């Protein structure tokens, strides 16, 4: 479904090369964990796959289509990044969840009942009328995930989705993601720093160590 071909990843200006020659195909139904030493560029890789920054080389295709052929907003609608640091507007939870449904690239309509259901599955019993920015960091992160899931992308790119969660909430999250990939014929690619848990919960692991452009600064824990 998602084909990554000979991808290089770079960041900054002047550009610093982080990874080279990364090729990988991700199939529907897969839940893949991205691991690598800290500073390897997991975040930059996810941003590159989502098309928010340009790769120096390589291609990313979704069912054969690139951002150039179907348009970047539509591509990102299907290959959707949820950043590690939650970004919510100064509005209620519901308004935040409904916001992207106003975009031209989104054909579906916001369904409040469905939104409540997704939040509940993620362990968020908070009312939808609450001010989103008054929630805890972990709760905000899950609202961001719910916002993405409601748009039903084919690929969810998650940057440390469990970083602010306790063990129980993290397990709940894994169950929700597994259910999502099966229900919607989708895939998840999640950057994780906690390798043990990542191995335990995901189907597969994509270790970036082999693709690093420069030797890692820190040994992998």
């Amino acid at each position, binding site marked *: 479904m998602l084909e990554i071909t000979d991808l290089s990843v770079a960041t900054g200006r002047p550009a610093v090369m982080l990874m080279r020659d990364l090729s990988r195909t991700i199939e529907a139904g897969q839940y893949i964990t991205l691991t690598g030493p800290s500073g390897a560029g997991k975040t930059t890789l996810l941003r590159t796959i989502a098309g928010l920054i340009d790769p120096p080389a390589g291609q990313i295709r979704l069912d054969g289509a690139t951002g150039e052929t179907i348009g970047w907003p539509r591509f*990102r609608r299907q290959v959707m990044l949820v950043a590690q640091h939650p970004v919510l507007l100064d509005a209620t939870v519901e308004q935040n969840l409904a916001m992207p449904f106003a975009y031209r690239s989104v054909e579906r309509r916001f369904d409040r009942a469905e939104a409540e259901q997704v939040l509940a599955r993620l362990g968020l019993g908070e009312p939808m009328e609450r001010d989103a920015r008054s929630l805890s960091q972990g709760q905000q992160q899950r609202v961001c995930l719910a916002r993405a899931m409601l748009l039903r992308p084919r690929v969810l790119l998650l940057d440390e989705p469990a970083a602010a969660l306790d063990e129980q909430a993290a397990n709940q999250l894994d169950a929700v993601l597994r259910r999502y990939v099966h229900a919607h014929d989708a895939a998840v690619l999640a950057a994780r720093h906690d390798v043990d848990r990542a191995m335990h919960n995901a189907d597969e692991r994509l270790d970036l160590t082999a693709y690093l452009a420069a030797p890692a600064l820190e040994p992998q824990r």
Partner: protein
Amino acid sequence: MTLAASASVIELGAFELTLAAVLVLVTGLVSVALRLGLEKRLAVAAVRTVVQLLLIGYILRYVFAMHSPWLLGVVVAVMLAVAAHAAVARTQVRVPGILSLSLLALAGSSLITTWIVTRLIIGVEPWYLPQYVIPLLGMILGNSLTGVSLALDQVLTALRDRRDEVEMELALGATRWEAARRPLREAVRRGMIPTINAMSVVGIVSLPGMMTGQILAGVDPMLAVEYQIVVMFMIAAATALGCIFAALLVYRRLFNAKHQLMAERIERRGG
């Protein structure tokens, strides 16, 4: 409408100007007496006032006498360049090419507005009559450069500090326009506020310089007021246009065809 001087203007000569200089002299003495330490700067400022104003007086007299559209073009170009520079001289954040961006925004907005006012509203004949074009353009630029400056500062600061928000929207499938419109709208609003404030208090808190000048020159106050209304509206229109142009130009410079925000182009001043 024509500027008909109904009453005679009291002429000022060298003697009257020297008398006025006594006022500055008194201010200087106060500075010495109170040890404000301002006398030197005051003297320099006073000399600058005299030299700059005399210079512009001679230039305007020359330009008015020449009646040349080409000469008017040169004066307009200098005014635009100075205004464009002033609009970005104190912004905290900048992008490469911000000066040309400011120039485009100010030139576009002020020339459109000046043309509408001189041609369609006042009906100046010939169109390049400098005693109308230069003061009107001057008032437009003097006000819209503040608006453009605020709008530029606001939009660049917002796109730098709230990059996360814009990229979050892009990541969710927003087009660059959908992701940018919130900061762009805020920028135009910010740039418009001083003008709207000025419009709401004009005549009550402030008596505009142009209007008082016309009244001093013996023009009927009602005629002066009519001119002032035109001036306020044209300033509002020019400022709005200038802010919109500036915001759109920043948008074009910072978002690419791949719907990416090139926030790394925004730099701190001096950095």
